[in-house]
């Protein structure tokens, strides 16, 4: 519980950093990586589909409440919940492909957001939107995914070792701890 509260708090902090700083950087292509999405993916990789979906929903709900929000409540929660579930599910079914899952979900997230925006938010789907707006964001997400996801899994795993795919790592750590003690 404590660890989950810490993760949720970090997500909240990340969200504020995202809107006040990252989104305003003059990056080429006028896009920026979605750090919160990547954090949810990392959390889901470490803790599985169910926890990933719950964390995605929570983070999305924060996103619906955080000030520059002009959409209806629940839309972003839906997006991140789906992404968290898919990431966790994918990682559960093939634990060895962690990086591929992270990259895939990083690229998938913006697409889910567009679909939810078109279906529920009254946005108009256009060809221009798909080529001009989506590709840069997907690219930035994929670029930022390895460090972000690694950091997120690190934060989540650091306090609990009964993880989906940390058996060998846990064994190694246990050995190190045992060796380090006097």
């Amino acid at each position, binding site marked *: 519980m404590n660890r989950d509260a810490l993760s949720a708090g970090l997500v909240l902090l990340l969200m*504020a*950093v*995202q*809107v*006040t*700083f990252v*989104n*305003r*950087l*003059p990056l080429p292509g*006028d*896009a*920026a990586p*979605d750090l919160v999405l990547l954090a949810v993916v990392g959390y889901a990789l470490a803790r*599985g*589909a*169910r926890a990933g*979906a*719950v964390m995605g*929903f929570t983070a*999305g709900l924060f996103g619906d*409440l*955080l*000030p*520059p*929000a*002009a*959409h*209806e*409540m*629940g*839309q*972003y*929660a*839906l*997006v991140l*919940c*789906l992404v968290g*579930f898919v990431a*966790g599910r994918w990682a559960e079914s093939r634990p060895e492909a962690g990086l591929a899952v992270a990259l895939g979900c990083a690229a998938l997230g*913006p697409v889910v*957001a*567009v679909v*939810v*925006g*078109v279906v*529920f*938010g*009254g*946005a*108009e*789907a*256009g060809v*221009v*939107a*798909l080529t*001009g*707006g*989506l590709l840069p*964001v997907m690219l930035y997400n994929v670029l930022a995914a390895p460090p972000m996801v690694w950091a997120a899994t690190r934060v989540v795993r650091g306090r609990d070792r009964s993880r989906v795919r940390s058996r060998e790592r846990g064994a190694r750590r246990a050995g190190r701890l045992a060796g380090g003690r006097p």
Partner: protein
Amino acid sequence: MKDTRQARATVGLLLASALVLMTVDHRSGENSPLGPLRGAGTAVFGAVEQAGASVARPVVRFFEAVAAAPEAQRRIEELRGENERLRYALAAQALDHRRSAELHRLLGTAGLGGYEVVPAQVIARRNVPGFEEAVELDVGSADGVRPEMTVLNGDGLVGRVVQVGPSTSTAALISAPASSVGARLEGSGEIGVVRGAGENGRLLHFRLLDSATPITRGQRIVSFGSQRGVPYVAGVPIGVVERVEATPGELTRIAYARPYADLTALNVVGVVVRPPARNPRDAVLPPAGQNGAGR
């Protein structure tokens, strides 16, 4: 297997609750039961973001400076020359100013028929392509800002206020995928609708309601306006037509326009807190130069 079923049930429950939230929020509109929650969010996070923005601003400015460095040197030279010229012009104008002020008072029209604008700084920005584009401003209800007010900058229309907290407010940009603005082609005066094209504010989608009207590259689009200037005041320049789609046999014509306001790098904007004292009902297009020519 049991775990999978549990996970599925959890996800189904969460997705259903997201849908319920959306429905409740959408159906109840203005007096949504989730309104107080959102208001609290705006109040709390608005203050946090205001503090965060003051920390982040120097860093953002540093990156902007690095990005603009090659051009900056040339620009400095240019500005130096311009400064010199302006200084002379200013000296001449100071002489004229006193006389002008007296004449103005004489005419008695100074405060009438103008828009009252509150300047604001963008402190946070959210852009998820195809989902939403919104910015947070550092003015709130304490500054007289209310929902459904027009947001503009020196170049053109920026968006409208959707949510107001005590000291911050949220504005949806005109390039947001779900926003639509009534617009008018300058010249022919034909009406249409401007929507976001999902290009992160680089392009706008303009649907002209009369397919027989000629529309060409370079034509200006201004806001159409509505009663009492809610949510968009009339005559604010929106953009210039860049590309016209060929839509043979359709009832409307579609063009893509480049917005005047640089929606990708917004910094200082203004919120129109009061429309002109006179009801602009019969003035279909405001006189050129009042607000529409400020580009």
